[in-house]
């Protein structure tokens, strides 16, 4: 089945949201990871941290309602939720490095079967800088990579990352439109196959070696 980009992103965002538990402190990368908030399960409230100094990020604002004093890390106008607070860059990164963030969801250019991840640089082509990504991934309790399974047909889940790493041996989970992988010290495991994919499809589009050990309650 051929999915549109929009459908693909929705499938991934919806699955990411299932990982959130009530009162989790969560940091979300710009783009696809941020969309997961729209699919929060009923009765689950999370506290979203933004690296520029907002704990308890609220609703997005448009040009007419935005207060220029409050943005998220992507530069979008936001509000702050009741119980939230503003902090400086030191405190913001204390939260990240110090192990106070429950779940971090980021996109990636490549992830490998050892839990290495690359998302900040394609030498000579794309060098936006790492921003806060390296600090964030080091300290988080759980690191989820949310991304499309392939880039223009090329595998993104590989045996060994060839791009400059953001972090070594840290990724816990990969969620794509085709399925869910878990990475542990024992290796990489396929836990779920999406209704929009099949085991053969995943095998054909994944370069990394993985063990098929599906969760019993998976869809």
């Amino acid at each position, binding site marked *: 089945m051929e999915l549109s980009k929009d459908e693909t992103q929705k499938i991934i965002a919806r699955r990411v949201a299932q990982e959130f538990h009530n009162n989790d402190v969560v940091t979300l990368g710009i783009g696809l990871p941020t969309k997961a908030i729209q699919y929060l399960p009923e009765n689950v409230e999370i506290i979203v941290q933004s690296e520029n100094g907002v704990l308890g990020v609220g609703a997005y604002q448009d040009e007419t309602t935005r207060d220029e004093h*409050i*943005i998220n890390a992507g530069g979008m106008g936001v509000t702050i939720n009741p119980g939230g607070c503003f902090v400086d860059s030191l405190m913001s*990164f204390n939260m990240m490095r110090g192990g106070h963030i429950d779940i971090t969801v980021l996109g990636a250019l490549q992830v490998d079967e050892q839990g290495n991840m690359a998302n900040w640089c394609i030498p000579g082509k794309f060098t936006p800088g790492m921003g806060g990504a390296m600090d964030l991934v080091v300290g988080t309790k759980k690191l989820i990579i949310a991304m499309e399974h392939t880039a223009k047909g090329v595998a993104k889940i590989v045996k060994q990352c060839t791009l400059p*790493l*953001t*972090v070594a*041996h840290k990724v816990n989970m990969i969620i794509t439109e085709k399925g869910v992988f878990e990475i542990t010290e024992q290796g990489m495991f396929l836990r779920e196959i999406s209704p929009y994919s099949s085991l053969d499809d995943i095998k054909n589009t994944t370069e990394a070696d993985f063990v098929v050990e599906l969760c019993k309650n998976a869809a």
Partner: protein
Amino acid sequence: MVQIIKPAEAVQFFQNKQTIMIGGFLNCGSPELVIAEILKTNMGEWTLIANDTAYPDSNRGKLICAGKIKKAIISHIGTNPETVRKMNAGEIEIDLEPQGTLAERIRAAGAGLGGILTPVGIGTDVAKNKQIIAVDGRDYLLEKPLRADIALVYATYADRFGNLAFAGSTRNFNVLMPMAADVVIVEAENICEEPLDPNNVVVPGIFIDYIVAGGSDGAK
């Protein structure tokens, strides 16, 4: 007591080849008035220390586009295509740093520390040419202090003692840079007649030298 000056008067503190720290995260809490004044001069070849190079048409981004910056020590340049172009063309030296490491290096300088030990960057290109120190079996990078000749920062509120307070997410690097530079200039959106409530002061006035009545690209 700090001195309240006009943006143009701040030009006298600048010289060629200085290292300049500028606060702000993209356009939020970003000083702009003094930047507009130094852009009018022939000075340049500066080293910029900041979180990001903003956008081509705003604050720190304008300094990049005008060719005033020789080197930037920075965590993110992706919002300013001109920084990326200049880097690829060899017109500017870019030293990319993890954002939390950049903040801690500035704090180390301001706090009188010889550096900090961070696990961030271990196993990546960031660790190249840096000393690795093991503490209780875990590896850390030694990251050295980062000082500047001038710090140019934003505040939402300032009093005549130089005490600063902030609204929203404007604190970012503005809170730490004043500790780590020889001359510290604040662009304050509001200069308060009465001293700020001591309970609300975020940056103590003893770190501040000059205040400019101003604002920010991100908050007018």
